């Protein structure tokens, strides 16, 4: 059984059905990518999984427990942790404090000796005494991932980790993300950068109008005529 099993997930905002019965299973050994046009429900899916929104219907089973409707902090403590589309930090606190706050909350064994090791892994050691709010954008993105890693997650949901980064920064971040499954951290990510997704993901899921329109090995999904029609518009 997959680590995260989602079935019949529904969420409605006013007249819009953001999630119209999504089924999804996420394993921790392979990186899963979620793609789709803007407004297709990708971020809503992450928000509902992590308890930001309560689902209208459906089950979210994480490691054998139905967590649908649980509060965000409780879900995070079970090792299911997300990052945000906007680069988020505790701006007035130092980089080390940012990571330390998350580290103090971890409930699982972490594949790193301590927050310093995580900063080192993310290439942020030099900035550890700087206030997060003063970091350049590229490093702020890395800090977001460092904070998430410090919670000792078992599955990370990354919401557009490459948004706003240039090509070189995106590639560097991609290499770091690729190392996570080897450290027993599952990864599921949303991004619009198809080159990045092709490099990172073994499997892809495509959402459109809150429903899953394709799923499978990355290469096969990218060549699926429906996906090309709805999202890609041309062959990559």
């Amino acid at each position, binding site marked *: 059984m997959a680590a995260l099993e989602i079935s019949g997930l529904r969420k409605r905002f006013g007249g819009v059905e953001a999630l119209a019965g999504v089924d999804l299973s996420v394993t921790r050994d392979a990186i899963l990518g979620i793609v789709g046009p803007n407004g297709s429900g990708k971020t809503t899916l992450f928000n509902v999984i*992590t308890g*930001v929104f309560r689902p209208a219907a459906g089950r979210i089973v994480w490691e054998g427990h139905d967590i649908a409707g649980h*509060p*965000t*902090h*409780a879900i*995070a*403590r079970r090792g299911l*942790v*997300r*990052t*945000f589309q906007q680069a*988020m*930090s*505790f*701006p*007035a*606190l130092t980089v080390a*404090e940012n990571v*330390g*706050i*998350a580290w*103090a*909350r*971890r*409930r699982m064994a972490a594949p790193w000796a301590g927050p310093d090791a995580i900063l080192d892994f993310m290439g942020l050691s030099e900035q550890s005494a700087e206030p997060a709010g003063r970091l350049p954008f590229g490093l702020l993105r890395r800090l977001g991932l460092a*904070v*998430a890693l*410090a*919670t000792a997650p078992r599955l990370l949901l990354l919401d557009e980790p490459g948004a706003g980064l240039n090509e070189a920064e995106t590639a560097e971040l991609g290499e770091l993300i690729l190392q996570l499954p080897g450290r027993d951290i599952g990864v599921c990510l949303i991004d619009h950068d198809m080159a990045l997704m092709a490099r990172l993901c073994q499997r892809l899921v495509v959402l459109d109008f809150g429903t899953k329109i394709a799923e499978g090995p990355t290469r096969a999904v990218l060549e699926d005529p429906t996906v090309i029609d709805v999202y890609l518009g041309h062959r990559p």
Partner: protein
Amino acid sequence: MSGRVSGRVASAAFLLLLVALPWISPSYRFLSIAISTGTVAITLYGLAVLFGQAGLMSVGHAALMGVGAYSAAILALRLGIGFWGALPCAMLTAALAAGLIGLPSLRVSGHHFVIITYAFCTLLTIVLTNGGDATGGASGLDLDPVGRLFGVNFDSVRNYYLLVLAALLAAMLATDLIARSGYGRTLRAIRENEALARAVGINTALHKLGAFMLSGAFAGLAGVLQAYYLRHISPGLYGGLPSLYIAMSVMLGGARVLYGPLAGAVIVNFLPEVLSIDPVDSRMAYGAGLVLVILLLPGGVIASLADLGAWAAALARRTAGRWTQLAQGR
């Protein structure tokens, strides 16, 4: 002398001055104003935890002082529990009152929360005014003198001042310990980014409620100390205007620095009384002063003084360096 050492010397000298005040105080009135300033300052330290660390502002903290004060008065009247027994009980009831307000109101954030605290404050005044025999109505309740403990008579102004000072120093120490602790760091995380705090596993609702209750306990302590000093309490002491003054004092002095709240209490409560400034004039001055501080010195006067000190030290170093260069004939 390094900045840290000179800061410590200044702190020690200031604390010594506070302890020596009863012996060097020019008048009874001076010491009496110092006592009421000290009690308010204790409330300000509680509010500094809430506002400075957790980022939540309350304009209802006089009401929480009122809960403490009326708890003490009612305990004395109905159960014969005196000052020392009332202290912990009143801290508890004020914390519970804060919890009761916080449970529904902390679901909203920012100015919505601020408005609810103000509403609570007004509500409490109405309840106290119409409480009949239980609260003494509009005329309020009387309290007996504190009496003796371990052979010390706290009915003398000097001894009561020292008691308030001890409580104030304890409040300052507690605030400092909280700010340095992991708990303080958790509250700052909530202040800085609540959504991210939740995402890393912090139960933000619980900690916000906890911080509000904690600041309520400070206010309860202050309320008892104030009530037993005045020996008569009435609803007007705990209404909207005193609450606004408390919120203003914290913003003026600065909530994130150790001496900030005390400075706020001195500026708002002590100076106008000692200098006998007309109350209407002082109110207008504070209105203008508050706007200026918010616009120009968002960290409060003490933090800004520290910045000014650092700037002056850097300027002095540069000037000294230039003189050395000149002396060496370069």
